């Protein structure tokens, strides 16, 4: 009898009582990574690993194993992508920012993604607060970067000083100051490309979304914060607007508008499916044509297609004669390059060179950084992730505000990075820092995993854990519902 009692007591000793502490720790790590402090991926990895251990201790008794298996299937491609990236030829480049510590690549991304899933199972975790933390971190970083840039330059310097250069270390700079900005990297402010600088304010633009769901009178503080964040993002982009970022700025506006349109009109079913399929098909078709068109020295139907494209003014402009396609074509062409014995030499990644430079697009740069197989696993993860995200958007019981924000943040990050992600952000250094080492990427993985949990676990989460605050009770998902949020973290 006593033995049974002891056993019962032993069973009661679990770590779930520390859920609130772990949730707080999660928010701290989330803020730290969203802030991208120094792009210190090793630190991010260590923090993610420690956080994951805590989350496992807190949740392992309650979490559903069937959901876990499905999540494991979801996480598998990103883990393999991380492993292949670590083993890639690319990481042997002396300028690779992780140096000989490439093995951290799969650890960081897998652990932090898993954190997103596990923390979602805790009742005390509020996605509204997590989003507020993410946006606050992004806003602080953007503010620091903007102030640093304005102190050194002046508003609209990108337009005023388009062909002006500075001397650095005895040489004239490679790019004019209109392509430079200043950003906080680690504990010092450095010259970075405008593309890198603009990433953070571009993401902040999505802070406009909650303004369409919150009522000012009921949520003054939150409303004002998000309004301030979105204005900060807009102001940053406006004062540093340049030819380089104009396309991405426009794209960000379109995505935010589309997400707002879909969420406000509550288009979840057929319209969403049709739009997804149409956009996906266009993208796939464009990619196939781009690949065929990029192959130099090809024959047969490839040449016919290439001739047709170069003979058509619009298609030629689209696939050949623009600043984006040139670098994409070089990478796609390099992919099938063979050596004297007919072996493909670039299948497992390669260094950026003068002839085949980085393309400023994660999609094509992944072929360089992680090889063709890494690219395929990453593509599989993105497809699975977007699918989960859309299911989450349609079916989750989260408020529409949060769902729209998550969708917009992820879409904006990957869309921006599709055309303007600078792998060498420092102006006076060639340090290589691919997308998988960036803070916003890890945040996107976290949100993907959160959405995955919400998709795989439609039943209300664990009962045993005490909510952090009274207001964290499950919110009914009603059309036009408004959050009563406070910021008492």
């Amino acid at each position, binding site marked *: 009898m006593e033995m049974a009692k002891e056993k019962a007591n032993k069973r009661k000793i679990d770590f779930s009582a520390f859920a609130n502490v772990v949730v707080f720790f999660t928010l701290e790590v989330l803020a730290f990574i969203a802030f991208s402090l120094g792009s210190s991926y090793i630190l991010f990895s260590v923090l993610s690993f420690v956080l994951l251990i805590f989350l496992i201790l807190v949740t392992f008794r309650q979490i559903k194993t069937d959901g876990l298996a499905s999540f494991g299937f979801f996480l598998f491609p990103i883990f393999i992508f991380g492993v292949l990236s670590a083993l890639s030829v690319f990481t042997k480049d002396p300028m690779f920012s992780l140096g000989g510590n490439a093995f951290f690549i799969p650890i960081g991304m897998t652990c932090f993604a898993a954190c997103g899933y596990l923390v979602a199972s805790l009742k005390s975790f509020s996605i509204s607060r997590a989003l507020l933390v993410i946006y606050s971190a992004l806003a602080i970083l953007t503010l620091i970067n*903007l*102030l640093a840039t*304005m*102190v050194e330059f*002046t508003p609209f310097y990108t337009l005023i000083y388009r062909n002006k250069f*500075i001397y650095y*270390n*005895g040489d004239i700079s490679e790019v004019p100051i209109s392509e430079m900005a200043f950003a906080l990297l680690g504990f010092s402010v450095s010259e970075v490309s405008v593309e890198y600088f603009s990433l953070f304010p571009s993401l902040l633009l999505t802070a406009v979304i909650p303004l369409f769901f919150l009522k000012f009178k009921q949520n003054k503080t939150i409303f004002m914060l998000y309004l301030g964040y979105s204005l900060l993002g807009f102001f940053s982009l406006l004062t540093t607007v340049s030819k380089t970022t104009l396309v991405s700025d426009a794209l960000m506006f379109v995505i935010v508008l589309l997400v707002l349109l879909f969420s406000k009109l509550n288009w979840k079913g057929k319209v969403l499916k049709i739009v997804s399929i149409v956009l996906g098909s266009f993208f796939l078709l464009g990619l196939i044509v781009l690949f065929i068109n990029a192959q130099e020295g090809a024959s047969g139907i490839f040449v016919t297609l290439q001739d047709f494209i170069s003979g058509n003014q619009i298609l030629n402009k689209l696939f050949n004669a623009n600043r984006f396609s040139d670098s994409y074509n070089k990478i796609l062409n390099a992919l099938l390059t063979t050596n004297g014995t007919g072996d493909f030499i670039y299948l497992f990644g390669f260094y950026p060179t003068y002839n085949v430079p980085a393309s400023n697009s994660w999609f094509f740069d992944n072929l360089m950084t992680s090889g063709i197989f890494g690219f395929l696993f990453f593509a599989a993860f993105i497809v699975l992730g977007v699918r989960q995200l859309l299911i989450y958007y349609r079916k989750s019981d989260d408020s529409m505000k949060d769902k729209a924000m998550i969708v917009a943040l992820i879409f904006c990050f990957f869309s921006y990075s599709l055309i303007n992600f600078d792998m060498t952000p420092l102006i006076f250094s060639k340090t290589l820092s691919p997308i998988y080492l960036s803070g916003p990427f890890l945040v996107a993985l976290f949100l993907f995993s959160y959405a995955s949990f919400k998709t795989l676990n439609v039943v209300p989460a664990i009962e045993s854990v005490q909510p952090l605050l009274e207001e964290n009770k499950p919110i009914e998902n009603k059309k036009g519902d408004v959050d009563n949020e406070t910021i008492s973290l």
Partner: protein
Amino acid sequence: MKRFLYKGTLLIMVFGLTACGYSLDELYDKASFNSINFSDNYYTRWDKNISYKESDNKITNPEAETIYLDKTTDHVFTKYGEDNFRIVEGNYSNYVYEEDLSEVENEQGKLPYGPNNDLNDIDNSFRYGFMSRLFDGQLFCNGFYERARVQINSDGFGRTFPKELFKINSTTPYFALSFKTSIEYRRVVEVGGQEVNIDIAKWLHGNSTGSLIHFTDIALTINFYLKNEDGYERVPVYYEINDIPCNQSDNFSRSNYYLFGFEIGNSVSSLDRCAGISIEYSYTDAYLDDINSRIDVIEICVSVRIFY
């Protein structure tokens, strides 16, 4: 809402005020200081605070007495291999004085002198601006003709530093300046709406081969500006070097470069808090005097090294 608008306007004004434009002070075109006309490549900037010939400056001792350096007591050197240089440079034999673009030691285990003694590596602030060419450790022009590092006419230049210099170790402090001289050898003029490239030597001698090789005497005036509470204390230093090879622009032989320098601590007692420098020169050149009516430009190609 009104309060927010006011605050927003205030915030925008704050951003406006922060737009100091510190990095806009020195902006250049891509091909700056690389004109085919030598006379277009002179670096002539004088910072207002140390412009001692103008009245509106911050020099606290306008009547500063010029220090005439003494070859023996100040250990003045004008050549790389000179004894005085060996005396002041404690690591003389550990350096190689030909390679100047890499910091890595050569096969004999010797380090390139310039790149291992440059200010740019000591403090990042010296990496910015055209003056960074003087601080990057490259001692030789390493290029042809107009690709000189810093080219000055006799009025020279005067610039303040982003930070002050101090003696921080027990080794003998000295100042060094690497340079070579040349008179104008080529000029592009517009004749009938078309640009014509004139080879001065050929034009001067009236035949297909011509040379401007000769010797000249240079008198250097280097002012150091030591920061104090009210502005800058000017420390003018003067030294004459005779029979300098002029227009011997063989870029692959660095024998015609001069390394001028002197020990600090004797006539120049200290350069602590040095926060600016100006370099000017005058010349005595019989060869040039002879052709001066037709050629009116002389330039000096310098690569300054400051060790302190």
